[in-house]
């Protein structure tokens, strides 16, 4: 299948917008309203630019743009395909909500160093979009590292001893990952003379010896530590020390999704479906991530801190995405890719609810949340929507991706994987229902009055909850995520659109 390419600098602009905004944020640091105004402007502009490319992508075209020839044979270049734009839309769209939410959160808590916070946030978003639009491994690596560095100040934001040590942990894991990724990139370049992603995988890799191939794959997967596979997941719960908007957008969407996005790019666009199948790597990887899916859910049950529980839930859900991709069947890949936006909407709702609880009720631990729904009914309703989605109950979006994943596993007639998916659904229920139960049905220790979070926080979380339902009811609405995913799947499996 030949895809038509369009040359346009829009992807580069989409990446640059928040870079420019970050400078303006710094310049207007003394005027909070203007500073946050720039964040809004950047968020809207970014989303518009990303969405403006969607019609072309839905037409089955690919947008390319070469920024600079960094080294001979190694350009920094962008290529927007269906899979890339899926991630870009998710991140840039949610940035708008989180900007509003951040303002409410940071001002209510009177956090220090807010200019630095918005500055780093903008850079992190640029990096996320950069990762989405990368045309080759080197460009991807550039933004991958930038994302790590720009999110460090956000994790260490409070600058307490705990925050700094969590920040160091974060940095250690992700930098080791970066080095491993670089190693793998060098090996790929040495073997094939290119690092450019291709729908069928990079040609020439199949000539590598089997041992080298396995080492390469492992190095790549260590490189994807942002996807928080066990045992490389410990940075994610540690990063929960960050302000909640950071946990919401970055550690439920941008950073961790960048990890799984990279993992899928590598699995399907570097190795390719054929090589994954012939080398047998797919099944091993599927079992490997299955362990994470189950174990992380069990860990989640043991957490009393709500944000940490959500973090472990994220660890588990991320592996769904990778699991889908390594099933290398049409349905499996669809499920995996679709889980990127779907999980994003549901998990960001959950995190924003957790943040609202911290700001309004000053409560972080589930054991303190008896009857909290009487105080914050709207928040807890939104939380319930998110939780149902995670468990996979219709009509919230989550059931659709799980359905596709199950179909994929069923096609392979692999009982183990089917079992993993079913057990995981049960475990999800086991750690989300107690929260809902505590909030709605337990008697509060003292009388609670109705008091919700500020509107800047409440509106975003309600909207994302509503969207989580909409994407569950009309998953196949034209131009919506399923449409995009279908094109991406057709690209990699070689089928027609």
């Amino acid at each position, binding site marked *: 299948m030949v895809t038509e390419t369009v040359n346009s600098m829009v992807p580069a602009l989409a990446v640059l917008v928040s870079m420019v905004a970050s400078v303006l944020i710094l310049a207007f640091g003394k005027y909070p309203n203007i500073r946050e105004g720039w964040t809004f402007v950047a968020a809207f502009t970014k989303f518009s630019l990303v969405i403006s490319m969607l019609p072309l992508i839905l037409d089955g075209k690919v947008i390319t743009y070469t920024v*600079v*020839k*960094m*080294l*001979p044979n190694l350009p*920094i270049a962008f290529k927007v395909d269906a899979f890339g734009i899926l991630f870009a839309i998710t991140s840039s769209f949610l940035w708008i909500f989180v900007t509003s939410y951040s303002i409410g959160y940071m001002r209510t808590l009177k956090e*220090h*160093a807010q200019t630095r916070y918005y500055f780093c946030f903008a850079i992190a978003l640029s990096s996320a979009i950069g990762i989405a639009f990368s045309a080759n491994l*080197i460009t991807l*690596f*550039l933004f991958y*590292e*930038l994302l790590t*560095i720009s999110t460090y*100040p956000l994790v*260490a934001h*409070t*600058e307490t001893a705990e925050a*700094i040590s969590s*920040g*160091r942990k974060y*940095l250690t894991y992700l*930098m*080791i990952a970066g*080095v*491993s990724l*670089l*190693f793998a990139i*060098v*090996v790929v*370049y*040495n073997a094939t003379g290119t690092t450019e992603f291709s729908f069928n995988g990079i040609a020439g890799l199949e000539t590598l010896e089997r041992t080298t191939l396995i080492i390469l794959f492992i190095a790549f997967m260590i490189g994807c530590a942002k996807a928080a596979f066990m045992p490389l997941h410990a940075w994610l719960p540690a990063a929960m020390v960050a302000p909640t908007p950071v946990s919401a957008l970055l550690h439920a969407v941008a950073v961790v999704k960048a990890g799984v996005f990279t993992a899928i790019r590598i699995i399907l666009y570097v190795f390719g479906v054929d090589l994954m199948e012939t080398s047998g790597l797919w099944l091993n990887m599927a079992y490997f991530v299955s362990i994470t899916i189950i174990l992380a859910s069990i860990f989640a049950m043991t957490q009393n801190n709500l944000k940490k529980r959500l973090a472990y839930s994220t660890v588990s859900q991320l592996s769904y995405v990778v699991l889908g991709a390594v099933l290398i069947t049409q349905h499996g890949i669809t499920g995996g890719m679709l889980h990127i936006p779907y999980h994003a909407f549901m998990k960001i709702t959950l995190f924003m609810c957790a943040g609202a609880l911290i700001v309004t009720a000053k409560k972080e631990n589930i054991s303190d949340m008896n009857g909290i729904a009487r105080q914050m009914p709207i928040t807890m309703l939104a939380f319930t929507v998110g939780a149902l989605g995670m468990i996979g109950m219709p009509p919230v979006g989550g059931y659709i991706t799980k359905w596709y994943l199950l179909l994929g596993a069923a096609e392979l007639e692999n009982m183990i994987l089917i079992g993993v998916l079913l057990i995981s659904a049960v475990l999800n229920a086991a750690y989300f229902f107690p929260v809902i139960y505590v909030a709605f049905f337990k008697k509060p220790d003292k009388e609670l009055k109705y008091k919700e979070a500020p509107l800047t926080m409440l509106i975003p979380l309600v909207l994302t909850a509503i969207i989580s339902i909409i994407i569950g009811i009309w998953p196949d609405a034209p131009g919506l995520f399923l449409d995009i995913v279908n094109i991406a799947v057709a690209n990699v499996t070689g089928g027609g659109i």
Partner: protein
Amino acid sequence: MSGFDMIMVHIPLLTVVTPLIAGFLMPIVGWIDRKLCWYWVMAIMFVVLLMASSNLYTVITTGTIHYELGGWKPPVGIEYVIDLLNGFVCLIIAFIGLMVGIYSKESITKELPNKIIPFYSVFLLLITGLMGMTITGDIFNFYVFLEISSLSAYALIAMGDRGDGVVASFNYLIMGTVAASFILLGIGYLYAVTGSLNMADMQNLLPDLYNNNNKVVLAALAFFMVGFSIKVGLFPLHAWLPDAYTHAPSTASALIAGLMTKVGVYALIRFMFCVFTPAFVFDITRMAEILTWAAALAIIIGSVLAIAQSDIKRMLAYSSISQIGYILLGIGLANLIGMQGGLLHILNHAFMKCALFLVAGAIFYKTGIRNIYQFKGLGKKMPVTTLVFLIAGLSMIGIPGTVGFTSKYYLALGSLEEGMWIFVIVILLSSLLNIVYFWRVFDNIWFGHPHEVEHIKQDEAPVSMLIPMVILAALCIFFGLFAYYPLHYILEPLSEALIGSGVGP
């Protein structure tokens, strides 16, 4: 022929002679008015930069320049030869010299108020020595310039911290003299067996000798390798370097760290490839292999020792030891990619390390602090300076988009091409170690004490110090994104020539 053309012919010579004469005129300039010294240095360095650029431009467009001193034909007369290799290095010397020159104005006025005239005199002599070492095509003439540069460096370092500076300088003097003696012995041996001092001539004469397994030639090679290893501070012959870098005046540290070792590396390359032949150093004696292992060791140990330091200049000095390892590793790999990586790192490391030392100097200028654990709140006090530190530091780590990445990438690729996986791991491990010791500083500058810094007011270094730092930081990013240009125009043809047959004098 117009007057301009007449001068143009002599530019290779003038590149060396201009700073020499200017250095000797410095006392007169200073006698008229001390403030003139800096302007004099600026003018001279600017002219030198123009001449160095013109040299390189001529080499790229028309080929190697041969200049016969006094009209005597080589091999009897002294010949100056400029090819891509030394044209490239000369330009780095001139550029870094200019940057450090701009910076020196305020820094020297504060640190050495009574020694302005001797400082600038010696400064120009150092540039002379380095330029001469680079441009000359005659190995004895090379030795003369080596001594000029070394003696000026001893003098500069001795002007530094009271007491410690003198001791450091004396240590360096001893080590440097040992190195110079080795090199002189090597030159003598080669002269004894070939009867020539011209590099190109020697390269023609030597193969006959070492094909007959001549022990004198082997001894000469060994002497050169040891001598230059001391000069560049290759582990384990690095002992002089940390003290010298730490206790020198800030300006001198930047100059010496940015340039001295680079020129040492240049000399090593020149002797390995253009006095001897690649076949000799790679295949017959396998000297290059020894070099790569020593370099790999230097990379790791330099980084580990850097982690142990709390004085920022000392930390940077140990980091230099590790970075010199990168350059030598690339050269020793003996393939095109590795060689390009090594040569590119000469340029890149000059930018990064010079910027870092300038930052250390600027912080010392404003606060008198060199201990990184006392850097609290500096991010607020000196935002521009610390930003430069961040960029240069990330560059040292090898974050893509900065110069540190491109050379690291090439070195890793070169190692892989030789099948030396272990070196790839060394390079990547060193990245991680770099993160450890730079991040510690970042943390101290920006994090860990939110409430203590609230009252700190901005108090930035003077503009004349900021300008060179900002330019260097900008170049760290520029050449990180546009590494294609130096690679395509200079380093690719150069590496091919070096690996292929050995170009040059």
